[in-house]
């Protein structure tokens, strides 16, 4: 529960409570017992006591304020919270314990949010030679980093089956935009200027149509076939002299490999269009399928997914773009090149005149690139294939087990992730997928992605990744099956879930419609979980 600042005196940062605690009601009496996993913390402002402080500056410079004009000096001290150092540390440590994290438990969101990131990558990225290199250091002083980037360009080109790779894009969607701009430059360079459409299947990533639009194209969406793959007839009907590119997310957001990939690519190229592969799900096919060898023209890789890097909370990421030989002239500049004497340098201005130019300052998210390099080198080729195989095996195992109680709208086998539908459960019990997701929290799991992809009713999208043990996969499957049983036996429990968290089900609609963005003390009925 939250502290009650209106009672006077010191507010106390409570330790994390595990199990059942007594709830103190607003009049100070004990309320009904309630299961609680961890308790909310008072804010720093509520913990503040005038005069309390953390430390003294040992030798404050006497003239520290002398250089600031009088009219810019404030006349009174700012109203900042006043706390001791241990209070501050406990506050933030206890807050951090309220989060569910991959380091704390299984996380069926998969690589989209976070897969396990081997710690050796962190060690590599923190080596001072990489971490402390100035981004404007001349090539002669950056040989080690340039060599790593050059090798990484080559390794990623090999994984993609492409001729060259730019490391600049800062994330997957940025990579998509870069790839589509390269395609635009290619058509323009050939005088093929009427191609203003990009075709996107409805099972693709939502960023694909956004990318096409941002690059100045009109998006043409085609429906999926009933098996979840591309509808070839719809694709052939949409292709024409105005098609610049077809963007295929492969494997798709349904976790399915595009079985008609050969026909899709043939039809695309026959129309004079180029084929873009959204490689965000490359962790399902890495080492087993090389898109360039299948005649895709461009793809991006999400290093922060497939090649591991912490990226929860929005980044930084890295979305390198690999292209086939006919598109190399248009890739962003500068690439890292190797001289005949074995030294490395960045391309010079104008060296590749067809280039679309820079898409990011410096050489991209170099810290992420170092982690990806370490990941690739520690695994080696056979190791990367094993990552793929284990991710696919884990997803198929879980799919089979979850299928005992949930609908599986698409025939298996799947790749690294699978969709299950709660449509039948909803019809039979009135319990919706949102309720299921909330109840999973009570069972100790972060919910999987829900209501995406949009084309599956009451959808759950589950990606276990390659690093979970059989026991962990079984435990999660048991939790999902238990929730399905609860839906039949005690549906009201699921409507009310989560029951064991410091805040109960949030009013997301009001939060979105009328957000309160400024902190003020919460009292009485305003506390997050009023009884």
């Amino acid at each position, binding site marked *: 529960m939250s502290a009650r600042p209106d009672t006077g005196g010191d507010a106390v940062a409570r330790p994390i409570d595990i199990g059942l605690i007594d709830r103190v009601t607003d009049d100070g009496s004990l309320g009904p017992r309630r299961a609680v996993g961890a308790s909310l913390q008072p804010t720093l402002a509520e913990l503040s006591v005038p005069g309390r402080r953390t430390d003294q500056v040992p030798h404050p410079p006497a003239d520290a304020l002398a250089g600031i004009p009088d009219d810019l000096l404030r006349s009174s001290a700012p109203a900042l919270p006043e706390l001791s150092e241990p209070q501050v540390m406990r506050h933030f440590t206890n807050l951090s314990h309220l989060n569910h994290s991959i380091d704390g438990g299984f996380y069926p969101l998969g690589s989209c949010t976070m897969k396990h990131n081997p710690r050796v990558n962190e060690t590599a990225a923190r080596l001072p030679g990489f971490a402390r290199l100035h981004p404007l250091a001349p090539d002669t002083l950056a040989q080690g980093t340039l060599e790593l980037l050059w090798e990484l360009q080559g390794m990623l080109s090999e994984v993609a089956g492409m001729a060259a790779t730019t490391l600049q894009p800062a994330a997957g969607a940025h990579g998509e935009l870069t790839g589509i701009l390269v395609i635009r430059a290619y058509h323009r360079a050939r005088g093929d200027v009427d191609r203003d459409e990009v075709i996107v299947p409805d099972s693709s990533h939502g960023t694909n149509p956004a990318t096409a639009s941002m690059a100045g194209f009109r998006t043409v969406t085609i429906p999926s076939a009933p098996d979840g793959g591309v509808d070839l007839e719809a694709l052939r009907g949409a292709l024409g002299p105005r098609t610049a590119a077809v963007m295929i997310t492969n494997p798709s957001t349904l976790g399915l490999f595009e079985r008609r990939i050969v026909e899709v690519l043939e039809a695309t190229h026959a129309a004079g269009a180029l084929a873009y592969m959204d490689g965000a799900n490359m962790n399902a096919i890495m080492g087993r399928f090389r898109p360039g060898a299948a005649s895709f023209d461009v793809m991006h890789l999400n290093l922060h997914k497939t090649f591991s890097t912490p990226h929860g909370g929005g980044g930084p990421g890295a979305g390198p773009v690999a292209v086939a030989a006919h598109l190399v002239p248009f890739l962003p500049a500068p690439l890292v090149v190797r001289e005949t004497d074995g030294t490395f340098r960045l391309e010079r201005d104008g060296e590749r005149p067809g280039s679309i130019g820079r898409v990011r300052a410096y050489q991209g998210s170099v810290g992420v690139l170092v982690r990806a390099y370490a990941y690739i080198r520690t695994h080696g080729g056979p190791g990367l294939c094993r990552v793929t195989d284990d991710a696919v095996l884990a997803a198929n195992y879980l799919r089979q087990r979850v299928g005992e109680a949930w609908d599986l709208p698409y025939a298996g086998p799947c790749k690294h992730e699978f969709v299950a539908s709660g449509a039948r459960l909803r019809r039979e019990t009135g319990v919706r997928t949102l309720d299921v997701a909330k109840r999973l929290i009570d069972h100790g799991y972060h919910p999987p992605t829900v209501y995406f992809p949009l084309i599956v009713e009451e959808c759950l999208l589950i990606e276990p990744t390659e690093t979970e043990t059989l026991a962990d996969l079984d435990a999660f499957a048991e939790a999902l099956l238990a929730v399905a049983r609860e839906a039949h036996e005690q549906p009201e429990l699921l409507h009310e879930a989560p029951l064991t968290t410091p805040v109960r089900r949030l009013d997301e*609609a009001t939060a979105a*419609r009328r957000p309160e963005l400024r902190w003020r003390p919460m009292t009485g009925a305003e506390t997050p979980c009023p009884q």
Partner: protein
Amino acid sequence: MDVPDDLRYSDDHEWLRTDGADGLVGITRYAADELGDVVFVELPAVGRTLARGETFGVIESVKTASDLYSPISGEVLEVNDALGASPELVNEDPYGQGWIVRLRLADPSEAELLRDAAGYRSLIGD
């Protein structure tokens, strides 16, 4: 399921109420329930000409964001500005105060191409 008999329906779950040369457009009760609590409706500019099936806005709920498709061609005469402050009207009263745009119909006979209430009920398996 609430499917009024006097409206026409598109396969994309928009309804159309014609009144001579004008038509009022919104989304169905079924669509509103599927979306969940609506938090934002992006409305088109007044005066914009819409082709049948053209995207004219976006409706965002706590669950998802979906395009709005015009069930019929016409020019936007008026938009429901009340949805700016109260997007929940779409959930509370989808066939009334939750209307989205009023159109001047280019060809009122196009309404015949839409489903009637019975046809829409069968579409949603009601």
